């Protein structure tokens, strides 16, 4: 590198020019690189996602709703189960007489932005709690589905042959079982055993707070709903397992479990994210449907579906009690759908259609 002087003694000499064989410097190497800086899978997807205005707007809406559901209730002056005496059936922004008197006395009273219900509970506080329940159901159920579906699909696809055939016939059969019927049936029949469990076994009291309806929804989701996910994952694994790196991993003595975890599932991550995101709104949809029928969350706990159901009785005088949860739930489902579509276009363009 140091001797850069050319040996110019004999112009016609066959002596090799030693400086031609000096290792290239960093700058020289840089100038030879014709490729762009490599863009990772995530960067590429995120860039495409960021350009999708609709998906970004939905993401903002989701974040706002999440804030509204999980953080705002902590600062909100009214609790969802708090019954304020004398403030029953208030209209939008209305104050009760006692509250007016307190305001006269110079006290600050937080307005009931969306009024109160027939038991004097603040509607806005109940809607915030209801959104929290709906979102939790959507997210927990999708997580269960993700876990079951991806593992089942991966095992079926990886081992192939007879295993695959038996496993996929089971999936086909579960696919045709009418899910809503089974959920309704389970929430009816599991009520007594679960209540007994909550009463007799210490540490199981959480069952009552979560509600038998919700638990049966989760049970059914983990029993039935994972089949869609399993089918999609299996399809991907079938083509992935023919890749050379899987053969290499096997030749190096990797176990089946390791190949599935480290080589196959990791490569379906785009599909997994997209399918899970799109599963969230459909789980919320199911939950609100069941709560509307009175089969979801149990009494003091509100859910957007049960809030709407309770509002039907007073629909003529208090339409906002119905419209508020109805709009909230539609907004949640819509923004998750649009965001999921955006994720799919960004991370998994092959899944389109």
């Amino acid at each position, binding site marked *: 590198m140091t001797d850069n002087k050319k040996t110019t003694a004999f112009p016609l000499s066959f002596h090799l020019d030693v400086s031609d064989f000096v290792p290239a410097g960093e700058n020289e190497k840089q100038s030879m690189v014709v490729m762009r800086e490599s863009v990772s899978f995530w960067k590429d997807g995120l860039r495409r996602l960021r350009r999708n205005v609709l998906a970004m707007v939905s993401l903002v809406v989701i974040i706002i709703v999440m804030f509204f559901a999980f953080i705002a209730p902590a600062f909100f002056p009214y609790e969802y189960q708090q019954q304020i005496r004398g403030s029953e059936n208030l209209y939008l922004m209305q104050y009760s007489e006692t509250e007016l008197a307190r305001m006269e006395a110079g006290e600050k009273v937080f307005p009931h932005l969306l009024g109160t219900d027939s038991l004097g509970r603040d509607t806005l506080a109940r809607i915030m709690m209801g959104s929290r329940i709906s979102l939790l159901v959507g997210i927990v159920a999708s997580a269960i589905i993700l876990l079951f579906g991806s593992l089942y699909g991966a095992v079926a696809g990886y081992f192939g042959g007879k295993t695959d055939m038996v496993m996929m*016939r089971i999936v*086909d*059969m579960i696919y*045709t*079982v*009418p*899910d*809503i*019927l*089974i959920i*309704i*049936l*389970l929430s*009816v*029949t*599991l009520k*007594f*055993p679960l209540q*007994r469990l909550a009463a007799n076994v210490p540490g199981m009291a959480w069952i009552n707070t979560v509600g038998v309806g919700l638990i049966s929804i989760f049970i059914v989701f983990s029993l039935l709903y994972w089949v869609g996910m399993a089918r999609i994952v299996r399809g991907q694994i079938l083509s992935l397992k023919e890749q050379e790196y899987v053969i290499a991993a096997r030749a190096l003595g990797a176990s089946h479990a390791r190949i599935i975890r480290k080589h196959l599932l990791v490569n379906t991550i785009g599909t997994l994210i997209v399918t899970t995101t799109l599963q969230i*709104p459909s789980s919320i*949809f199911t939950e*609100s*449907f069941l709560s*509307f*029928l*009175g*089969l979801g969350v149990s009494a003091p706990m509100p859910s957007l*579906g049960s809030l*709407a*159901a309770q*509002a*039907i009785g007073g*629909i*003529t005088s208090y*339409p906002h009690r*119905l*419209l508020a949860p*109805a709009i909230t*739930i*539609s*907004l949640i*489902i*819509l923004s998750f*759908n*649009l965001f999921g579509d955006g994720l799919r276009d960004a991370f998994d363009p092959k899944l*389109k*259609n």
Partner: protein
Amino acid sequence: MGVYIIKRLISGVITLIVVATMTFFLMFMVPGGPFLAEKALSPQTLQALESKYGLDKPVIVQYFNYMKHLAQGDLGTSLKQRGRDVNDIIRIGFPVSARIGLIAVTISLFFGISLGSMAAVKRGKLTDNIIMVIATAGIAVPSFVVATVLLFSFGVRLNLLPTVGLSTPLHYIMPVIALSLYPTAYISRLMRSSMLDVLGQDYMRTAKAKGLSWFVMLFKHALRNAVLPVVTYLGPLMAYIMTGSFVVERIFNIPGLGSKFISSITDRDYPLIMGTTIFLAFLIIFMNVIVDIVYKLVDPRIKFR
């Protein structure tokens, strides 16, 4: 072909047996038996009732008894409505639900297919955008929201449409709209994407090149191929309409099978719950079998397995 149909039928029957077994054992898990809720029954009466319904026998015997009756199409007797067979209740309630359901299916197929194709043909234009915005919103709104908002605006505020029961054709308007909005939106999205797929095929270019009219191209070549994914959606569609009827019938006070099913749950009328579940499961499962067979029939590219 024949082999395929038989295979599909057998798997349908197996699914149904699984559902029936599951239903039976779930109902059996309810402690104290179905007569527990009845107030002040003397031990003798209880015993008499139990032996009458065969509840004093071992589970396995009961199970096989139940399955035997089921195979003969006998769904048992309602507990709360004394002396009425579950079959009877279904026979009265089902036609009402089926009428609304069929109208809703027809309407959602018609509007879904035509709106979806229209959006695909006018891709990127204003028509496409409007249809897709409506369809995207339609998928996000649960049927109970549609039903209650309709009830409030047209039934209560504007007082244009009757809100309770099914006595005149006018009564059908709101329940049918509430039931068919979601499937219409879903089908139009499905139809749009498959139509776009078909419109980009080589045979469409060939059709255009040989000078076929726009009408023949669209209806004879494009639509017939593009409608195939919609056929696969028919099974889920039936299931959706059936479960959707639970909510819609309750909101509009329609005496159909859906509202009967929901009230049987609040009444804890176990034989009625079981019977209705199995009946509805039967309908959904066999619709799926028929749809699968039809799908293979209309699309010769799919090989029978």
